[in-house]
């Protein structure tokens, strides 16, 4: 059943009729119940499905992490066997990276928010959008099936390096399920990338020029392009690995004339853009949240956009900084490119500071999470600079220093994700999340994250390798591991607070209203939750913050602190 969406010009030129009116004109049977969910093509329903599914993956992967941390509280622990431990860290990493962070960001939040932010009635290809979700769900189930087959799930690390991942060294159904799962989720991501780009290019509302889109949407556009560039490479590599495993090819094996390190080139050519695909949406969330809760426009909007594009461009040229210790890559090229990519990231951090500067900062739960993200990401980003220097990478690679680095970064992203949930949750559900529980969740997560990560940096410098089920008998190593385990469990407690908050807020049902935060971007103009096809009416769009302009006609953005001129006022309130 297809629907035609039309805009109608009302008396004051701002009315936008949704198809609710059309629906009244003719009868058709609206699906109900579970069939409604199975057949929905509404980006908000699909996005919410993605968000909930990915958070379930987060909880499962988090439980695996706690098991890892229990095993590492003492050397020679037999909490799990070595074989089980290898499966644990493989599945923890795989679930988190392939099935949680990415899908949460581009399948969940972006799906719901991007059409709203640009005034579109839905994504450009709603059925393709729905297909993306079903592929993601199937892929997640395929990956989890590994726990139920003989031999257990894949155990070669989330990166699946060849030749370890071929059928000689990793036989069985578990690795094949891992490959099949990633083929499904890979196509899911590619279709979402198509949808994001097409939606942003073609469905913006009148007056919503490219340079008036919110920073979150800009970041999602670059993410969409990166997805289209990177994911097909991973998919091709996985197909090659499958062929090596089952069709007797010799692409990644020495016997037969293959090149094992080729797997690493292919994997990381996807793998590095992937970490920016993961990070950029959360940068976007932080930008929107910080601007709203500082009551100021985004500081350096254009610079932010150019920084994001630069990150996107550079991210394709740094992949072999994951391969410095192979001895077969061009060290200085990847070193300078990796060091350079720190520059636009730093620009973003300074712009966030600039946004808060001179503002009226409200430390809501969302804002606390956003600031916690910036601080934690600063630490993770700085340690990344070390890793961009090959000599320093030589002795930190594959140690807990790297583990700490990427957990700093990823836990920062999780905080930004929580900021997004507290910020946009009311818009999507129509109900407020409890602020006090949110702040408790934030502080426990922030403390837990840093409590885990700081000892791990130290452990890496002391020489503890990664992916190890046991370590040498050294009291200092044991102490540091125990602190890290404590941090991990504090984060687990934080997650419990989150679940409690969601349940409590759903029960309490405090209505949010259209714009509980006095926020600036377009999505806050419509109702909470938005109606079918998103907007009954649209305001005039004259800047990057149309809702703010509509609500605050007397407070236009000032340039360089110049006083408002009559022309400024006219431009904004037209």
């Amino acid at each position, binding site marked *: *059943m*297809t*629907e*035609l969406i*039309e*805009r109608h010009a009302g008396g004051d*030129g701002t009315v*936008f009729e949704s198809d609710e009116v*059309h629906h009244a004109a*003719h009868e*058709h049977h*609206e699906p109900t119940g579970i069939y*409604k969910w*199975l*057949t*929905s*093509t509404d980006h908000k329903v699909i996005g919410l499905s993605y968000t909930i599914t990915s958070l379930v993956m987060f909880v499962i992967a988090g439980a695996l992490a706690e098991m890892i941390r229990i095993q590492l509280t003492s050397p020679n622990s037999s909490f799990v066997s070595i074989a089980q431990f290898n499966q644990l860290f493989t599945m923890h990493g795989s679930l988190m990276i392939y099935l949680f962070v990415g899908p949460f960001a581009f399948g969940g939040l972006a799906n719901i928010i991007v059409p709203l932010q640009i005034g579109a009635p839905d994504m*450009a290809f*709603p059925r393709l*959008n*729905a*297909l993306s*979700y*079903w*592929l993601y769900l*199937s*892929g997640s*189930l*395929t990956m989890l099936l590994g726990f139920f087959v003989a031999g257990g799930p894949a155990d070669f690390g989330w990166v699946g390096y060849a030749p370890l991942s071929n059928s000689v060294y990793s036989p069985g*159904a578990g690795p*094949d399920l891992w490959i*099949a*799962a990633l*083929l499904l989720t890979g*196509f899911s991501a590619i279709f979402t990338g198509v949808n994001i780009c097409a939606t942003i*290019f073609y*469905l*913006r509302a*009148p*007056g919503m*020029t490219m*340079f*008036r889109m919110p920073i979150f949407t800009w970041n999602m*556009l670059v993410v969409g*392009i990166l997805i289209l*560039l990177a994911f097909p490479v991973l998919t091709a590599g996985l197909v090659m690995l*499958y062929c090596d495993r089952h069709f007797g090819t010799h692409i990644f094996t020495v016997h037969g004339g293959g090149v094992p390190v*080729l797997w690493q*080139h*292919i994997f990381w*050519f996807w793998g590095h853009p992937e970490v920016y695909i993961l990070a950029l949406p959360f940068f976007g969330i932080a930008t929107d949240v910080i601007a709203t809760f500082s009551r100021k426009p985004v500081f350096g909007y254009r610079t932010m956009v150019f920084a994001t*594009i630069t990150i*996107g*461009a550079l991210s*394709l*040229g740094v*992949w072999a900084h994951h391969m410095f210790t192979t001895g077969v890559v*061009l060290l200085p*090229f990847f070193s300078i490119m990796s060091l350079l990519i720190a520059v636009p990231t730093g620009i973003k951090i300074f712009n966030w500071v600039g946004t808060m500067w001179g503002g009226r900062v409200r430390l809501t739960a969302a804002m606390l999470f956003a600031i916690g993200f910036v601080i934690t990401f600063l630490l993770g980003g700085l340690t990344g600079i070390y890793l961009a220097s090959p000599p320093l990478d030589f002795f930190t690679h594959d140690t807990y220093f790297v583990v700490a680095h990427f957990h700093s970064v990823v836990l920062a992203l999780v905080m930004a994700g929580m900021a997004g949930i507290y910020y946009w949750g009311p818009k999507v559900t129509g109900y407020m999340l409890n602020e006090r529980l949110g702040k408790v969740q934030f502080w426990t997560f922030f403390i837990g994250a840093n409590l885990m990560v700081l000892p791990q940096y130290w452990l890496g410098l002391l020489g503890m390798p990664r992916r190890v089920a046991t370590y040498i008998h050294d009291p200092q190593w044991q102490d540091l591991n125990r602190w890290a385990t404590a941090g991990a469990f504090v984060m687990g407690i934080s997650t419990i607070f989150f679940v409690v908050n969601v349940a409590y807020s759903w029960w309490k049902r405090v209505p949010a209203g259209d714009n509980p935060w006095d926020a600036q971007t377009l999505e806050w103009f419509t109702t909470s939750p938005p109606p079918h096809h998103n907007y009954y009416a649209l305001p005039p*769009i004259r800047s990057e913050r149309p809702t703010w302009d509509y609500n605050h006609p007397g407070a236009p953005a000032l340039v360089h602190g110049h006083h408002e001129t009559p022309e400024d006022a006219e431009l904004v309130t037209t």
Partner: protein
Amino acid sequence: MKAEARLLLFLGLSFLVIGLVYWLWSGENAGGMMLMASAGLGFLPGSYYLWWSNRMRLRASDRADASIADGAGVIETFPGSSIWPFTLGMGCFCVALALVFGTWFALPAAGLIVWALLGAVIESRRGDPGSAASHH
């Protein structure tokens, strides 16, 4: 469409430069090849958009002074609820399971996929019984 064209062409050009520098300096073929292909992926739609943007009137979403009324009219046909994405998704799930558990899974896979593709195409053609798309 000019901004979109510039964005994609800028990315294509970046990858071309990065790719050439990398390939000539390192002689490593896999990375060089992938970067060239990425440059192509920027140039292909980018040049298309550039060509079009020189020939089309500014859309309402590209004009800084557009009013909502300027965007009045049919936006697009959006398929409402549809069972075909789910069906196609389940077909692809069967393909994945066929890769792991045996080729016999390919039978339900093929069935579901063909059924879904047919259904989706017919659905696009037929449209919603009450809407304009079906009146032809």
